């Protein structure tokens, strides 16, 4: 039961992260290679502010969102003007730099050891402690993120972003300030990723650079495209499949097998197969 609950929480945290990735990639066409970095900045800011700064959980979480969005805007201002392939590379570079900084800025991040004993959130005098309580907390925040996304998907903003994604020149001719809008969306998406990072820090009570490396972003991409981009249902189906499927290995006697590498191979293969045979994803409608 506890383990099932743990898997559900994992699916929810990743689903909340896929939603913000979808806002960038699916809706606006920003191929963000740095989403894991923003997720990591959010988690580290939350952990660092609560553990070293003595902040309460809510202020730390909100500060993490603001800090991450500000960093994203600063990075986005010079790079979002560039063409797609240049931007991919710039984000890849940013991702590597963030990981290097996390590993080397010991006073803030405790270097390779990570930050332990992140406090659990509390509401009033009630402290969320049990596994079920944390699951409900994560579900509530993920619910808010999904609600925000659902509201967005019914707003005129969506049409504007799709115009930018489909044809920047046409979008410009319609009077849309493409670069400014992209910077804004990039900062918002990064802020939401930071929120997922805070959830992750509260749930595991421990952050380490290993959770935010490149294989994380590849997992996220696989989740997004297996589920289907521009689809709210896809944002939960993709993470559910990619989290739960590897669990099957446990039942077929996974001892002695190199599970992490089998998973990576699986994610890679899934990305290729989805692109070739079902580019709109399992439950999505729009081809990537």
């Amino acid at each position, binding site marked *: 039961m506890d383990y099932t609950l743990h898997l559900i929480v994992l699916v929810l945290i990743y689903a909340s992260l896929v939603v913000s990735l979808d806002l960038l990639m699916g809706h606006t066409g920003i191929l963000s290679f740095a989403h894991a970095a923003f997720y990591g900045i959010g988690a580290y800011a939350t952990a660092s502010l609560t553990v070293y700064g003595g902040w309460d959980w809510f202020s730390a979480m909100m500060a993490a969102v603001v800090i991450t969005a500000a960093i994203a805007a600063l990075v986005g201002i010079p790079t979002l003007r560039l063409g797609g392939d240049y931007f991919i*590379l710039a984000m890849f570079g940013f991702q590597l730099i963030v990981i290097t900084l996390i590993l080397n800025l010991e006073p803030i991040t405790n270097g390779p050891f990570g930050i332990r004993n992140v406090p659990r959130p509390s509401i009033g005098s009630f402290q969320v402690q049990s596994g079920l309580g944390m699951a409900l907390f994560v579900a509530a925040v993920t619910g808010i993120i999904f609600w925000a996304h659902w509201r967005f998907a019914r707003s005129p903003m969506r049409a504007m972003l799709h115009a930018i994604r489909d044809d920047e020149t046409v979008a410009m001719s319609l009077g849309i300030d493409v670069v400014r809008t992209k910077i804004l969306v990039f900062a918002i998406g990064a802020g939401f990723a930071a929120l997922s990072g805070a959830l992750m820090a509260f749930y595991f009570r421990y952050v380490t650079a290993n959770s935010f490396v490149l*294989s994380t972003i590849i997992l996220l*991409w696989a989740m997004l495209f297996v589920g289907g981009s521009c689809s709210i249902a896809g944002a939960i189906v993709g993470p559910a499949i990619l989290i739960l499927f590897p669990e099957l290995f446990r039942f077929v006697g996974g001892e002695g097998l190199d599970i992490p590498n089998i998973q990576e191979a699986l994610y890679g293969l899934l*990305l290729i197969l989805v692109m070739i045979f079902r580019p709109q994803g399992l439950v999505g409608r729009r081809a990537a």
Partner: protein
Amino acid sequence: MLLLQLFINGLASGAIYALTAVGFALIYNGTRIFHIAHGAVFTFGGYALYLLALPLGLPWIVALPAAVIATAAFGALMDTLVYRPLRKRGTGPAGMFIASIGALTFAQATYSLVFGTDTINLRKGGLPTFDIGEVTLTAVHVIAAMVALIVFPVLQLFLTRTRWGRAIRALADNPRLAVVRGIDAERLYIVIFALGSALAGLGVVIIAFDLGVRPEMGFSVMFVALVAVIVGGVGYLPGAAAGGFLLGITQSLSLWQLSGRWQDVVVFGALLAFLVFRPQGIFGHMLVTRRV
């Protein structure tokens, strides 16, 4: 003298970056695919060399060229298995890139599963060295420099003087017009992938012989090579080669003041600086032109 030695070391690693970068740029210009799985093709060459030289016991003089050919074949195979079905579907550049990431991840994880994650050394003992003053050259330094000096002019001649080279440049310039003029694009894509992958193969056999093989070796080389392409100017092959050498030297010289763990930051700091201040690269004139 330390600086001179670092400079020489940088030239040698720069030659590897340059070969990989020119291979990537050739594929990118010719097919417009952001072929990030080029890194996995690179690593394949290392394992091919290992299989040919150690378990099969072929002499180096046979194993080295055979590994380069195997790398070329693997690149062409990747085009056939991954990119060709996508082209038939009319997939855009984003979809191609996502599939390429998938291919990179899949191949890299498969290498780990088959060969293990540890470095496999291909040779025992040290390399022959030559001392010139206080600078030490190894055989690998000399070979890397010679390969680069021979390969790049030959490639340039191939692209400008031969029928196939001209067809590749035509395809890079304007695919539709090239097809109208009777160029078989699908066949040429295979040639482009084989050629670009062979360049990566030349790079990898040198470095694999020197430092051994590990599953993610192509990954780091690949991304320095990508930066080299941008620093040199997208669409201009000699620029990619120059960018490779420049980054190799910069990375090596940075060891003078910084510890090795900052090397990635040096390379990608250079990238961000170029993207912000000179996105057309050192030699580029325009941001969007793609020419071979």
